[in-house]
């Protein structure tokens, strides 16, 4: 188990950004593996800059390294320049911590956050010197594991992975370690691979695709059935009940070279019950589990001291919903030890919960970017997707931001949503123009960047029955917004390539028949498909056709109520009839209130697992209307100046 560093070192002067491959981060560990210890290689299937900040992998890296019977290191997909040199000189995939060969680990565990990284998974497994198909692996090969949001439909990569882990990894990573340790102790003899996979299938939250058969009737999926009686028919996701018990990462990695989200990140809660119907994350991570505010404070404080960062992000799916968010922000910004130099960023700021108080606190230090996500251009459309932000909510938030000194903001929108009309699409342009208008009262050159993404229906959401828009239709809608904002000074439009949206759509709700497609695209050099300079739409479409598969059938077709999905044998706790009812409600423009502060709808996420929402505050936060009809002043009146008359944020 020697280090590959001496083989790698002469290659690094020849590649871009060699610091991606050297490790040495503050917080990194250099394990000294002992016989019998289980080795995990935590792998992100994209570049170091994208992968390093991944909090899931960092959490598991620490938990495994705290175990006496295991160790963990990290790896990221080498960029194409280094990959070419590695293949030429026969240097296999390596860890960045000690530059150990990937194949020397017992498990290679990938985080899957984006469908377009699937071909990189195959490439990394191949670079490790491991057969890409699980059926071809033997006892001497590592187990290939995947976790993360994409695993709620792992069927398109079923042939390539040994185990799939659903849900929170904090507890299950240890249970898997124990099973693999037994396998190691038994000597990993010939034929023992099947045994360890059978044993892993008994661990709740672990899905072993090779132990299931997918049955088809023509194009139609009949079902995915276990091949053995001891293998569970339904695999349930894992959920940790109390985030306060898992204050990880304790030592967040501080990269030497610049990465995305290059700051201290502290997760303030997991889960979201806002119920936005397009949002898979909000559906599959329920229930809401807040971290105790005191723990957030201490993680922020000790994290800033240790890392030397001058920015901290309080992360979650909707951070302004965190009970006591204003106090935590104020404590951080006003901490004299931070010398007034620390800024706080709140990703995923909800428009209706944005308060002047929070904004004022943040801007004491450096002002970070402001991003709001109204998601749709009209009230009607926002009712369909259950993102119940009134125009006044948005304008109130934008007005307060401008009055606090921001000049630029970003607005996120989706297009291609169910029932979307051209009026809805054009509403995006209207909102953006009105926001710029509001800014003119405060600044000479206010600017609003509109970021427009094509909607991809996801498993375990109420929109899983919806047929995705074609690239032509998405392009037309983008064109509508572009034309409507062309002459508007101050509005910048950015959009996601509809062709990439199409390929994401194939895999989002695809099945096992896509495995050969993914393998072929990879064999034809289709890696780094998340990168526009490498994305090859033609290659995907041609490969689908070569395998006799219809893009239209996978992506654009509306599903019926009785359709069997390729993820029906997996469970995020959500009842299928709850999702179907929510889909019907969407088509009827019916909003659904946030269940944190209203009675339960029995979606299944809490009751199924015997856990509950963990929320410190019994009242919704200021501005948290979400169409609940609740007394929105209960979170505290927040005066905003809109024009000359002071009003409350979000007040009608």
């Amino acid at each position: 188990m020697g280090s590959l560093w001496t083989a790698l070192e002469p290659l690094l002067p020849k590649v871009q950004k060699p610091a991606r491959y050297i490790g040495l981060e503050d917080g990194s560990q250099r394990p000294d593996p002992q016989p019998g210890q289980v080795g995990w290689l935590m792998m992100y299937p994209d570049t170091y800059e994208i992968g390093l900040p991944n909090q899931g992998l960092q959490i598991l890296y620490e938990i495994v390294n705290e175990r006496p019977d295991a160790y963990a290191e990290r790896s990221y997909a080498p960029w194409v320049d280094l990959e070419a040199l590695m293949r030429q000189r026969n240097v296999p995939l390596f860890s960045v911590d000690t530059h150990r060969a990937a194949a020397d680990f017992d498990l290679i565990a990938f985080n899957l956050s984006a469908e377009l990284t699937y071909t990189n998974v195959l490439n990394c497994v191949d670079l490790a010197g491991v057969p890409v198909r699980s059926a071809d692996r033997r006892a001497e090969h590592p187990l290939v594991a995947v976790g993360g949001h994409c695993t709620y439909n792992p069927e398109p990569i079923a042939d390539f992975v040994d185990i799939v882990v659903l849900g929170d990894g904090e507890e299950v990573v240890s249970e898997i370690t124990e099973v693999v340790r037994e396998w190691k102790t038994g000597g990993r003899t010939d034929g023992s691979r099947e045994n360890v996979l059978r044993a892993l299938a008994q661990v709740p939250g672990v899905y072993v695709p090779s132990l299931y058969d997918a049955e088809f009737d023509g194009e139609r999926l009949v079902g995915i059935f276990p091949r053995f009686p001891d293998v569970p028919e339904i695999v349930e996701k894992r959920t940790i009940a109390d985030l306060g018990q898992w204050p990880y990462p304790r030592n967040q990695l501080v990269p030497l070279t610049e990465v995305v989200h290059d700051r201290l990140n502290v997760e303030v809660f997991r889960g979201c019950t806002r119920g936005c119907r397009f949002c898979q994350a909000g559906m599959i991570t329920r229930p809401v589990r807040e971290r105790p505010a005191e723990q957030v404070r201490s993680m922020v404080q000790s994290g800033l001291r240790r890392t030397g960062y001058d920015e901290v992000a309080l992360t979650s799916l909707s951070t302004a919903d965190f009970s006591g968010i204003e106090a935590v922000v104020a404590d951080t910004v006003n901490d004299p030890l931070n010398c007034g130099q620390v800024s706080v960023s709140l990703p995923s700021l909800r428009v209706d919960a944005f308060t002047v108080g929070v904004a004022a606190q943040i801007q004491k230090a450096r002002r970070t970017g402001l991003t709001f996500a109204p998601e749709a251009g009209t009230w009607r459309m926002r009712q369909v997707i259950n993102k119940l932000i009134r125009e006044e909510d948005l304008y109130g938030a934008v007005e307060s931001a401008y009055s606090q000194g921001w000049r630029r903001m970003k607005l996120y929108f989706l297009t291609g949503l169910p029932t979307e009309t051209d009026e809805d699409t054009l509403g995006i342009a209207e909102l953006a123009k009105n926001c710029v208008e509001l800014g003119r009262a405060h600044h000479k050159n206010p600017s609003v960047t509109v970021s427009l993404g094509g909607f991809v229906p996801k498993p375990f959401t109420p929109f899983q029955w919806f047929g995705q828009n074609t690239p032509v239709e998405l392009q037309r809608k983008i064109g509508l917004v572009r034309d409507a904002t062309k002459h508007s000074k101050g509005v910048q439009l950015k959009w996601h390539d509809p062709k990439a949206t199409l390929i994401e759509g194939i895999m989002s709700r695809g099945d096992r028949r896509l495995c050969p497609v993914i393998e072929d695209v990879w064999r034809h050099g289709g890696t780094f498909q998340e990168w526009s300079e490498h994305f090859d739409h033609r290659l995907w479409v041609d490969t689908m056709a070569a395998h006799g598969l219809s893009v239209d059938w996978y992506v654009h077709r509306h599903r019926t109520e009785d359709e069997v999905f390729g993820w029906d044998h997996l469970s995020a706790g959500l009842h299928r009839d709850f999702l179907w009812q929510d889909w019907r409600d969407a088509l009827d423009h019916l909003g659904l209130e946030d269940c944190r502060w209203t009675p339960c709808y029995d979606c299944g996420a809490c009751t199924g697992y015997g856990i509950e929402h963990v929320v410190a505050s019994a009242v919704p936060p200021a501005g948290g209307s979400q169409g609940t009809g609740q007394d929105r002043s209960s979170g505290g009146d927040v005066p905003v100046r809109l024009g000359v008359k002071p009003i409350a944020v979000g007040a009608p």
Partner: protein
Amino acid sequence: MTAPVPFRIRVRFSKLGKVRFLGHRDLARVWERALRKAALPVAYSEGFSPRPRLSFGLALSTAYESLGEYLDIDTWEMWPDLAAVPGRLSACLPEGIDVTAACAVSRSEPSLQQAVTSCTWLIDIVDISAADLGAVVDRALAAPTLMLERERKGNTVTDDLRPQVVALDVVGPTPTGARLHAELGTQPRTLRPSELLAALEPPLEEALVSRTHQWTTSDGARREILPLDATHPMHVGERAS
């Protein structure tokens, strides 16, 4: 107009091992974090996005090692106990970056960019014997000029590098080849080891390159910007003897 920042601390540091692959811009960010971790006060620039006021000397190419890198740090308050600063900062820096000296310098001292007149380099060449390398060096030093064609601002220019070569000799063999010692001028512009090698006959390719010293000239005498025993508060100018 704002008042000028009164104090400047100059530190010398090394960059050795894996961390040699860290680029110059990333190194600056590593330093910003290290200073915050060490809780040493630093003056910030004004404006919308204030940054610590740090000025680096001559940039070191990515993948080169160094025993003599320099950084000037502006501060509103003099740091206490400069003798403890190298240890305190090294503990906050990544493995391979170690602070070896720290000194207060007068704000009237020339900047590092202006002060440095030459650098000493050790340059490893693989697959060559010390004798063959010696012959290449002798040829280069015996020739009246050492011409190199290079691209500068889109134009091809031909320069004579010879006046910039202060010293050039062979240190001896290495397990994989031989090692050159070179002192190369930095004014009016820096001569890089890779440029020197490209101008040799035949042109050579560098393996590991290390900067060992950066020199300045005062009153006709060559001296190091900060010698390794320079950790005490004193103006560099006063120390020159």
